[in-house]
């Protein structure tokens, strides 16, 4: 019982940045426990993603697809992972924190009767009967040390805190048949409404331009920020106030509710920096803030601040950067 399993939700498309980071996290867990790492890819993209996943330093890659796994539901994913784990011994079972693992991992923990640590930032140690992690509490204002005492533990990680592993020799790939009857008879997936955008995804982007209430909405300041984002090939993010006002969709929200990001550069425009928002972006490599209020809390975490009216500063900055990039 020293090995680690990382479960990856393999929708269609390629492995995401947070999947790669989850593998990096898995290698840390395996090394802390003195064992090896296996990967389990679940979903319609499992087969296509298995090749690239096999070159990340794992001992073995397992895939599970089929009709019931075509669409993600918590019940099916918890059931599929529990089925896979039958007769297999892992010290740690992990995944990246996302809206799926936030629900199916605790469900799985209950089914397996295993303790769980959510959204950890660091792996402190993994001994045979004790695993110790660091995680953020109180809206990211404090760090807590969490100890799990059990021979098998579940743990999700904040992907932005872990590095994708270097590529390595290809590991063997094995397809596992999904058992029937995973779907809960009382649950139906009706549909998903997702905004389509040509800009990079928030979780993948190196640069994020994030807009606050100070932009005064889609008729006024937001198009200026979008223009800046396009020049920088940046993703667009938003505060809760912007989403609550209906100016941008929920999937753009950064913060305690919404996404937690840590890009190379985070450009905060017209947002004051509530503690809930800071919790979602404070670990960005470089933070730039543009706000006309010099007292705005965002300046306390900013590496570079500009006290200015965004309606002047953002178009000027866009023009200046356009000129420099030639």
């Amino acid at each position: 019982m020293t090995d680690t399993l990382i479960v990856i939700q393999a929708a269609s498309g390629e492995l995401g940045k947070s999947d790669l980071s989850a593998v990096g996290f898995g290698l840390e867990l395996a090394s802390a426990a003195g064992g090896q790492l296996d990967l389990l890819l679940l979903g319609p993209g499992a087969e296509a993603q298995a090749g690239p996943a096999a070159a990340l330093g794992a001992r073995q890659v397992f895939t599970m697809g089929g009709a019931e796994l075509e669409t993600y539901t918590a019940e099916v994913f918890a059931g599929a992972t529990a089925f896979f784990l039958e007769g297999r011994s892992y010290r740690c079972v992990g995944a990246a924190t996302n809206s799926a693992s936030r629900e199916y991992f605790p469900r799985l923990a209950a089914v397996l009767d295993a303790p769980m640590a959510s959204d950890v930032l660091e792996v402190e140690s993994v001994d045979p009967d004790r695993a110790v992690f660091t995680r953020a509490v109180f809206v990211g204002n404090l760090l807590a040390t969490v100890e799990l005492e059990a021979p098998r533990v579940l743990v999700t990680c904040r992907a932005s805190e872990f590095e994708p592993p270097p590529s390595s020799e290809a590991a063997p790939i094995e397809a596992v048949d999904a058992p029937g009857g995973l779907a809960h008879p009382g649950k139906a997936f009706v549909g998903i409404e997702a905004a389509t955008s040509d800009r990079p995804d928030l979780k993948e982007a190196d640069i994020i331009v994030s807009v606050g209430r100070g932009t005064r909405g889609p008729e006024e300041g937001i198009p200026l920020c979008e223009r800046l984002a396009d020049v920088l090939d940046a993703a667009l993010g938003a505060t809760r106030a912007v989403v609550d006002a209906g100016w941008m969709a929920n999937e753009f929200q950064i913060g305690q509710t919404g996404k937690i990001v840590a890009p190379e550069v985070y450009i905060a425009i017209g947002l004051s920096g509530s503690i809930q928002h800071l919790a979602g972006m404070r670990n960005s490599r470089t933070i730039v803030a543009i706000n006309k209020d010099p007292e705005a809390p965002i300046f306390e975490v900013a590496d570079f601040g500009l006290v200015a009216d965004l309606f002047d500063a953002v178009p000027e900055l866009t023009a200046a950067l356009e000129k420099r990039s030639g």
Partner: protein
Amino acid sequence: MKLLVTLKRTPQRDARIRIAEGGDSLDLDNIQFEVNPFDELAVEEALRIRETLGEAEVVVVTVGGEESQQQLVSAMAMGADRAVRIDGGGTLDSLQIARALAAVAAREEPDLVLSGKLAVDDECGQVPAMLAGLLGWPQANQASSIELSADGASVTVVCEVDAGLETLRLDLPALVTADLRLNEPRYASLPGIMKAKKKPVEVLAIEELCDPGATRSRVTGFRALQEKPPGAILGSVDELAEVLVEKKLI
């Protein structure tokens, strides 16, 4: 119809939490407590469902000591009909709490369990999904809308997921967790507060309900975030553009 809402007593949302000397606990001496804000959304949603139906019972439940009584009363002041407090004694982990709540659900046989998506203190967000797993019920997480079907046999739930808005249909009994945009909780009215004092609170020892098992997850220490050195306030847009380019940030 019966609605069961789980809630947790948490420090007030704007409270400044300090680490106690020694670093292994928090200094909560002068901190005010309230119903976890996400659980408050769940209470509000249950009350709205009751209002839509005209008739339903809203039961609130918490796992905690004597001090949690106040938060049950707050929920009843908003309009919940009665409360159950499970006295756990000592530190319980998420799975133990979920087991106790599952035992209450088995006794109460609610049609719908509503919870906050997470508690703002430990931010684990584990208990609701563990509870759904123990009960074997369908679950929906991070709901921004819940609609009961005309025949009262199912709910259609819109969930805020990473990719956008996902719509699910759950046959009852089911468990749904509340996200920020689900509703705006009401304030308790003065008559509501008066009435709440007379509403029943059943107190049960956890051992009366279930074998909670051992505590296997513990917080053993706290530390503050590393202070970040203050950043530079720049004088002009040109300066900012220069810094971004020079430092190869873009």
